[in-house]
């Protein structure tokens, strides 16, 4: 384009525009049919592929995980090599029943079934691991201290270079995976119990004393 003869100057802008639009159109087609680099945003666009496992601890599945104290060990296989995975902690179906704030939404980024809303957290861990050459990965992390007491599964989503999702799988589809039932820390410490008990009694004493005094004053 830049080497066109000056005698064809009057044709240069029109040719330039035509080339530009053609290249743009080709690029759009490449993106549309490229597939692998586009990424998915919805669960319905992907098939759950691979295997996700919540691993045993010391040879057995924990009866309960304590928030702020227990670790969750996760392993997965059959995922795209070299891609980064996000890990979500998702409520089980029983625990989203009659709770619209935990409802399933097909758009991955808006799926409230996998959000912790008390202390907002949309991921258990974003960018947890880069899948190795075997398509495997592992991740271990402590259960966050303010995770609500409930029942969960682990969902692993693989992200391509463009940031879109290419694959996902949930531990609920693996019969060999441990289930996750959580309990919270002691949210009724002794000092809380003591202080509130004191004020409960205090308010009753104040009621009796104030009424008695006022009755006597107005007698």
């Amino acid at each position, binding site marked *: 384009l830049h080497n066109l003869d000056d005698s064809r100057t009057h044709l240069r802008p029109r040719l330039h525009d035509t080339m530009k639009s053609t290249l743009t159109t080709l690029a759009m087609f490449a993106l549309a049919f490229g597939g692998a680099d586009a990424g998915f945003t919805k669960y319905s666009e992907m098939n759950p592929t691979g295997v996700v496992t919540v691993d045993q601890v010391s040879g057995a599945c924990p009866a309960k995980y304590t928030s702020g104290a227990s670790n969750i060990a996760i392993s997965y296989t059959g995922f795209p090599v070299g891609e980064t995975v996000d890990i979500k902690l998702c409520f089980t179906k029983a*625990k989203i*029943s*009659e*709770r*619209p*704030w935990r409802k399933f939404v097909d758009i991955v980024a808006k799926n409230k079934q996998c959000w912790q*809303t*008390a*202390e*907002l957290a949309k991921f258990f861990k974003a960018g947890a691991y880069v899948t190795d050459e075997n398509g495997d990965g592992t991740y271990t992390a402590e259960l966050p*201290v*303010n995770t*609500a*007491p*409930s029942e969960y599964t682990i969902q692993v989503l693989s992200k391509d270079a463009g940031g879109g999702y290419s694959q996902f799988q949930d531990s609920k589809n693996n019969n060999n995976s441990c289930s996750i039932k959580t309990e*919270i*820390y002691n*949210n*009724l*410490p002794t000092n*809380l*119990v003591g*202080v*509130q*008990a004191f*004020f*409960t009694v*205090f*308010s*009753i004493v*104040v*009621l009796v004393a*104030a*009424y008695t005094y*006022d*009755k006597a004053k*107005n*007698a």
Partner: protein
Amino acid sequence: TRQQPAALVRNATMAAIVQPTFTIPVDSENKAKSLNIFSFSFPHHASFHMSWIGFFVSFVSTFAAAPMVAIIREDLELTKPNLGDAGLAAVTGTIIARVIMGSVCDVVGPRYGLSIVLLLSAPFCFCMSYVTDAAGFLICRLGIGLGLSTFVACQFWMSCMFNGKCVGIANATAAGWGNLGGGVTQFLMPLIYSGMVAGTEGRIYSAWRWAYIVPGLMHTFAGVAVMFLGQDLPDGNYKLLHTSGQLEKKDAFQTQMLGCKNYRMWCMVATYGFCFGVELTMNNIVAGYLYDQFELDLVTAGTLASCYGLMNLFARSLGGLASDFASVKFGMRGRLWTLWLCQTLEGVLCIFMGLARNSLATTILFMVLFSICVQASEGASYGVVPFLTRRALGVVSGYIGAGGNAGATINMALWFKDPKIETYEGIMYMGYLIICVTLLVIPIHFPMWGSMFLPGDPTVTEEDYYIKKEFSEEEIKEGLAVPVQKFCDNCRDERAPQHRPAAAEESKA
């Protein structure tokens, strides 16, 4: 001879009583002729401030859970029906309490009624910290919600302290500032909660429990303040006035029957259920709605939600003022039209708020306008209530106040408990129902003053309505109706302008 000792006691007591003197203009019943919100004069304005403060505190505690519901529902593993039931309990338990409070006010006075309810509901605030399941949560919200019966004492108290010229604005301002608690709590509790989170090293499921210490202490101190800084009536406390014979000792059952036989009361019960009841419903659901619908954080959702209740700062007074102004121009008919217009507009704006579900800014705009109309309707309602009856005013105030809570119960149960109905849909349906129920203002008719579409009969007097209908001949002869006669003299301005005493004298001249 048998009566002599009692008469001696009464006469001795009367002689011992120093006739009260007041620093503000009062009428023949010693009721204040105007309201000055910056005054603390005893007893009128001191009682005004004690009544709204007591009511304010009960609102803060009743709706303290609402802005923290996102935390509480996770800690206690609550479902939407659980939350709906607890919200229902908070506003339903007080239905009976308000009816009882009406009789309590008639029999022992509003000062005891208000202070004792505050002190009785304080332990429930402290015990909220121990709750571990849905049942405990419901019980505590039920107990705390009993504090909403302070509303009846508040309104009754203002009707005793302020005369017809300003009773609308006095009732409206006291109740409005009390209702303000429902808005203040939406941003106050998240702030207290945030402080407690810092104090518990980030443990949110302990922090919300600690936060409940604040409403509990507010109840305790406010209860004591009301008891010692207020006075039942301009002339003294109930006990003294009963002993001196200046105040009729009312029979609770008799006043209940008198109130219940008045059909106007039942119309107002229904209409008040769809202004005040709507406010209670919104206080229960709006913070959670904004949090879930627009994915806001707790403090932001609470702050925006508080805009609803904060309109009480002026909007309820606006309704009372509008009612009093309309009364000057058109008498009682003006008050009724004001009520109908405010409340119908409320229903329309409620529908628009539901329709605006996809835009936060539009939702907030309609929410604020909707809230202003809700509270103006409440103010306008209590511009009418003091005139429904005199002898059973406490009972009537109680039933109508209870109707407010019944309305909240109905709306919560119909629209905000079923998981299949989206919250924005519930808000819209509630708007349609508001418009329908408000039509019940139309049949409210005073024989001497008229109704929305019918004029009053100038040959019927206020004495016919308030004395002959509510007192027997023997009671009239005993002089029990004397205080009511003063009221009749003071409320003749509720007639249409051409039938007022001043107009009659002018036409004679």
